């Protein structure tokens, strides 16, 4: 594992008076791939928001290159923002419905119109929406695109500022399974080509198996197990991890047996 530059230390998060994440530690360095696995109510999405600097900690810290987010200088904050980018679950809300695709992608870019347009074209090609095979896409609006295309645009927007880490919150859950497979391939390719680190939040164990070297399992706001993804999936130790693993249906297998929780 490389030198960690995004670290959560004893992180707790709350909405109002309710604590939804308790005492989480994690450390991310360049090229790391971490899965955060859990069901609804596990706090995984909240944790993602904290890593993205969208939610301040109620306890503990999130630090960028050693400095807690709340104490970053203006310049450091800019660097942090560029380093960590989100990809959200596809939905009507990922892209501003009133903006063209091109404008959405270019939102983080500076410079003249021509330079930005060129960069947008490059990015579209990078995510599999090459303007030559999809002419005029940059002028379209989100509702004119398919779910898979919108998700690619979301990825392009994130890549525009050349981040070191992508935080993906259920990036494929709303997509058809064939589309999902292609997006996963895209993410894998981008990771390999650019040395991107990935934090993948999902309930889908098979997807973390594919993309994440290491994973955390969350339940009720706490990390109940962590380690190499392969180990978690083949030799789960915590009862919840076992339960989660057992619940995944196999193609042509039997009905998953799920024990009620202790």
């Amino acid at each position, binding site marked *: 594992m490389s030198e960690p530059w995004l670290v959560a230390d004893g992180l707790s998060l709350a909405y109002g008076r309710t604590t939804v994440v308790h005492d989480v530690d994690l450390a991310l360095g360049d090229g790391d791939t971490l899965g955060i696995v859990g069901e609804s109510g596990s706090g995984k999405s909240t944790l993602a*928001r904290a890593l*993205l*600097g*969208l939610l301040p900690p109620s306890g503990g810290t999130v630090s960028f290159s050693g400095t807690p987010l709340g104490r970053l200088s203006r310049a450091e*904050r*800019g660097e942090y*923002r*560029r380093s*960590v*980018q*989100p990809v*959200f*679950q596809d*939905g009507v*809300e*990922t*892209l*501003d*419905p*009133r*903006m063209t695709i091109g404008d*959405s992608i270019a*939102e*983080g870019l500076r410079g003249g119109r021509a330079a930005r347009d060129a960069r947008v074209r490059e990015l579209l090609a990078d995510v599999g929406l090459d303007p030559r095979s999809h002419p005029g896409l940059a002028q379209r*609006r*989100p*509702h004119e695109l398919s779910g898979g295309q919108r998700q690619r645009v*979301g990825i392009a*927007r*994130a890549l*525009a*500022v050349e981040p070191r880490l992508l935080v993906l919150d259920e990036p494929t859950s709303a997509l058809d399974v064939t589309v999902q497979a292609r997006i996963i391939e895209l993410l894998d390719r981008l990771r390999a080509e650019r040395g991107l680190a990935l934090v993948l939040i999902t309930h889908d164990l098979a997807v973390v198996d594919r993309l994440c070297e290491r994973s955390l399992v969350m339940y009720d706001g706490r990390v109940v197990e962590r380690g190499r993804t392969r180990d978690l999936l083949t030799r789960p130790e915590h009862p919840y991890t076992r339960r989660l693993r057992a619940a995944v249906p196999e193609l042509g297998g039997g009905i998953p047996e799920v024990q009620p929780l202790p």
Partner: protein
Amino acid sequence: MSVHPPLDPAHDVEQPAYRGRWTRRVVAVVGADRLAAVGAVVLLLIVAAAVLAPWLAPYPDDARSATHSLEALQGPSAEHWFGTDRVGRDVLSRVLFGARTSLTIAAAVLAIAAVVGVFLGVVAGYAGGWLRDVIMRVTDVFLAFPALLLSTALALILGPSVTTAIIAIAATWWPWYTRLSASMASTIRGRAYVDAARCLGVSRGRIVARHVLPNSLTPVLVQLSLDAGGVILTAASLSYLGLGAQDPTAEWGLMVQQGQSLFSTAWWVAAFPGLAILVTAFCFNVLGEGLRDALDPRRGNR
């Protein structure tokens, strides 16, 4: 006094700014909704009449300071289609110029109310926290006053005039826009594309300008058209009470008040301005409802 309660913000979703679709949709629904279409046409005529009043009015001076006591209280005739009033002024001309006054008041009031209201609402909705609490409390206080009462009080303090009427009515109208836009801003703030913008380092001001305001526009526009009728009625009420426009300004409410005591003998003095108020308010309402239905996201994509 708002004739229509504000739209339920929970149902308001930002509309894609695909302008072609937008206008097509509006035209399609207004086309389907005959009443709205009729309202729109009549409204256009009224606006045209207001704009062209100096040329359309047969006796434009009557709308200002001219008086002709010898021709007082003549019934509708070939020379005076709407008859003359107590001091011999042509009612038709005064009604036409009154359209100017009423529409100007409506436009001014709504402009002030919308600008102030939306600004406060967006700040409240986006900032949240104590700022939101403060702004919404103040809004609630204003909303607690019956609008006419507050307008009346302000007009009494400021002295009656058209300007007073504008200020007084605007002061009671802005809270609705604050509520509406605070709710919209709060909703939009939670949207993923706003999070993405924050992560891209876009400043709060730019987020509000680029994302929050444009996506809040549609319900505000609809509310404006629904409110226009109400504002006109309120302005007329104020003038009727003697707190708005003063003689010799031609203003429909004032004209109704002036003709009221003469109703049994010279009905035309109050009837025509009164009719003008009714028709205009009605058309605005009907148009507003047509627009609201046209832009209702639940209609689906047409």
